[in-house]
């Protein structure tokens, strides 16, 4: 198999989904952020964002805290240690697959 394809196939599927990738990328750059910030960064609808956050939380990648700002409910999200490490590994693997020169014109066969 083409080594580049193999690298892409080996990527963490949970993060590789585009919506979750946007969420993880946004959260990787901050210590924590609320739902509104994530909506602005990802352009996802509330329902979509909620369901993807729930999947990331279920996998232990994201920690979600329900709190209040004044009288308005606020959902604060942050990447867990596991989530941050997984995103870092994903980022490195994706960069290697997309941007590093492959062996041979189409990558070396295995």
């Amino acid at each position: 198999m083409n080594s580049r394809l193999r690298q892409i196939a080996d990527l963490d599927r949970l993060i590789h989904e585009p919506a979750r990738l946007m969420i993880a990328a946004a959260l990787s750059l901050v210590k924590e952020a609320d739902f509104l910030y994530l909506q602005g960064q990802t352009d996802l609808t509330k329902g979509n964002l909620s369901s993807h956050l729930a999947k990331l939380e279920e996998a232990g990648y994201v920690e979600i805290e329900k709190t209040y700002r004044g009288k308005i409910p606020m959902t604060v999200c942050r990447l867990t240690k596991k989530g941050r490490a997984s995103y870092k590994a994903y980022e490195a693997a994706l960069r290697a697959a997309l941007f590093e020169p492959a062996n041979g014109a189409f990558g070396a066969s295995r």
Partner: protein
Amino acid sequence: MADPLLEARIRAQRYWYRDGLSEIPLGIVQLLMGGSGFIGALGNRTASWFVPVYLIYTVLFVALAVFASRIMAAVRERITYPRSGYMHPRLSGWKRHVLMLAAVTGALVALRYAGRAGGWDPDRWVQWLPAVGGLTTGAVGVYVTVRYGLPRFLVVGVLAIILGVVVSVEYPPRLAMAIWLAGVGCAWLCSGGATLWNYLRTAPPSADET
């Protein structure tokens, strides 16, 4: 091929410039420094008003240094978070300030040593300080404009360069620096104020859960 992860990073970093609030404190500090420079350059040190005015300036600077981050947090809490959402950067406020201070100090020390190595006359070096400040501001303006697509930084950068060169040529060192600081401070205030006004007009606060 465009790097989608880099695009996400740039998008996240643009958050800091959306409301113009990062430019306003910078403008206030530069304006205060410029005002202090004017008093030093033009004022009569034996005049009765000199000491009280300098004391007021010292108190203002100390108050700014102590309360700036708290004031900014309170302002963002009321203006930015209800509109663009809340986020806490990975580096805490004081760590960012220490890094910025270290970068500025390092640049000044490097310039000083480069000047000595080049055999420049210290008086002429001081004379050209506003021009150097203008070029530095201009470089930052170009970087922020190219990276984040925010042309207002380029406008302030170009103004800082022109003002820096003009005052370096036309005025004695202390007065030149005071004019440059006050001028660039006003430019930051105008840029930040206009951006904030536009932000408040176009981004209504969210009434729902955030």
